[in-house]
């Protein structure tokens, strides 16, 4: 087995384990776990190093749990993405994103007819980090946007007839902490070979801010189809996600990506 395959399998297993752990922590009347793979296209620019976009395909894995809890939905998930990016000079770059989110969305509107939309909205806690490494422009440091914030999430869904269902969801930051590299990099090297750096180092020296200081926006549409009785495998879904992040401190930086997600959904007891 190649090392990459091992890492991928380990990551998927970790995602499932974490989401399942989250699921078993509550006691909703019904809940579901989805595990999916993302194929996307990402563009990242960080003017701290160079005002050029690095763009390219990305591959991600994620797990998400949605369950009924009291008058609302518990919506939590974990994601990891890796992008192989290139700037206009064809210089390669690597973009990594990892995210954990935990939201509770009280149901605001319930359908009175099959064609009605349901609506839930509420707070979400997000820990999300975008890390960019541009080998040709700076082979000693990473460039990151680390965010830990309280945001607002909204989710709406309706049946489309038959076994099909459409879910629309969105999320935006309100207040929280953002970590960015310093304007001038005095340290000789970031410890790029140490895994802990991607979780701790990219969250150091965080500053408090709000939607007016930096923005993290996510929109998603999921088309899912319920399967017939096949044990706990309840359905499959195809999703389209657009994600945008921006900050202006200490220099402009952007992330924009589109992801197509294919996921399996399991009913959990």
């Amino acid at each position, binding site marked *: 087995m190649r090392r990459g395959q091992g890492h991928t399998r380990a990551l998927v297993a970790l995602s499932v384990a974490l989401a399942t752990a989250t699921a078993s922590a509550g006691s909703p009347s019904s809940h579901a776990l989805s595990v999916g793979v993302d194929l996307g296209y990402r563009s990242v620019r960080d003017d701290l190093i*160079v005002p*050029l976009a690095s763009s390219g*395909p990305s591959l991600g894995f994620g797990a998400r749990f949605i369950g009924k809890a009291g008058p609302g939905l518990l919506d939590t998930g974990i994601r990891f993405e890796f992008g192989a990016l290139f700037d206009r000079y064809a210089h390669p770059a690597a973009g990594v994103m990892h995210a954990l989110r935990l939201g509770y969305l009280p149901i605001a509107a319930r359908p009175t007819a099959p064609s009605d939309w349901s609506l839930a909205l509420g707070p979400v806690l997000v820990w999300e980090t975008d890390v960019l490494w541009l080998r040709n422009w*700076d*082979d000693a440091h990473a460039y990151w946007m680390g965010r830990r914030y309280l945001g607002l999430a909204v989710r709406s869904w309706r049946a489309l007839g038959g076994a099909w269902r459409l879910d629309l969801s969105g999320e935006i930051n309100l207040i929280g902490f953002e970590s960015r590299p310093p304007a001038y990099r005095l340290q*000789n090297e970031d410890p790029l070979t140490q895994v802990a750096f991607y979780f701790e180092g990219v969250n150091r020296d965080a500053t408090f801010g709000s939607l007016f200081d930096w923005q993290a926006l996510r929109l998603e549409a999921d088309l899912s189809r319920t399967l017939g009785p096949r044990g706990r495998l309840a359905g499959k879904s195809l999703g389209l996600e657009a994600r945008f992040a921006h900050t202006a401190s200490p220099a402009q930086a952007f992330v924009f990506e589109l992801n197509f997600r294919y996921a399996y959904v399991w009913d959990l007891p």
Partner: protein
Amino acid sequence: MKSAVFLGIWTIGSLLPGCLFDEPLKHDLGVVPQPLDDGWEIATPESVGLSSDSLARIHEVLLSEDRFVGSLGMLVIKDGKLVWETYLRSLADRDHYHHLQSATKSVTALVFGIARDRGYFPTLSQGIVDLFPEELVGLDPLKGTISLQQLLTMTSGIAFDNLDFDLEMYTFHHADPLRYILEKPLYAAPGVRYYYRNADPQLISYALQRRTGTSESALAASWLFSQLGISDWYWQADSDDGVTIAGNSLHLKPRDFAKIGQLVLNQGQWAGRTVVSKDWVEQMTQSQIQSDFHDANGLPIPYGYYWYVLPNGFAAWGNGGQYLLVDPAKQLVIVHIALPDTAGLDGSQLNQFVELVHELL
């Protein structure tokens, strides 16, 4: 069919973000130096006999989005006067210090020279066993014979690749960083072969601290920077033992970097005072050995004590395109600063920069 739709949507989606961002890498922010209270006299190029047309051609290349893409700025000093100064990305680069990368080694040579002038190192043939007797206990006795001269010419023979050095010394922690360096194997007997390594100047930094009881950066502050009116600088120290990192990590403002060149051009004199001896400047900037870097003709560039020797003078050179060219015959100092940690970008080789400014030399 489903696959085709999926692929189509993905392709359209791909084009959208791919076209969103890109700003110009460089901007024309002018070439006329502004008077600052930093000791530099300002003059026009014509007043010192420089061609504005030649400088304009250089500026055009620097502003190109395809050449010298990592460039941040360039300065020209002639006859001791700052006559041309340009920044490509932001004027703020003039007022903030920048990582000189391996041009730091050239400053290390100056600090060492001043220490030698002051009697701390009577002879360059001294073996390091006299300096680090305890750290060498139990190691190959040949290592003890490594001389200061060999450290200054990258011929110690210590096999410590630069990529490994930066990673291991700055990322990992060591109880005794000096011993860690000395424990590395020898790739050749001392003095036999030039091998460009940060380990050699780092041992010079240890020698300076051991002999003087003061870190190299503190020595530089006292003996060098304060003499030249350089007050805003940064020089990183090893996080384990506080010893100055001598092979890179010095940060200077561009105009202050130019002062280093002017001092060497003046053979160690500054404002009527001797900062470093003429004897040392001559030794430091004359060929001691052939480096493993090559000029435009593919010939090895001669190397002095951490200075490169050019047909028209000598140069300090740091990764990414940090250049300090000194042409004594023309009384010329040229500084170029660039993004410091780039790899493989145009303009990051000394011969490329010499070619760019050849009309001035």
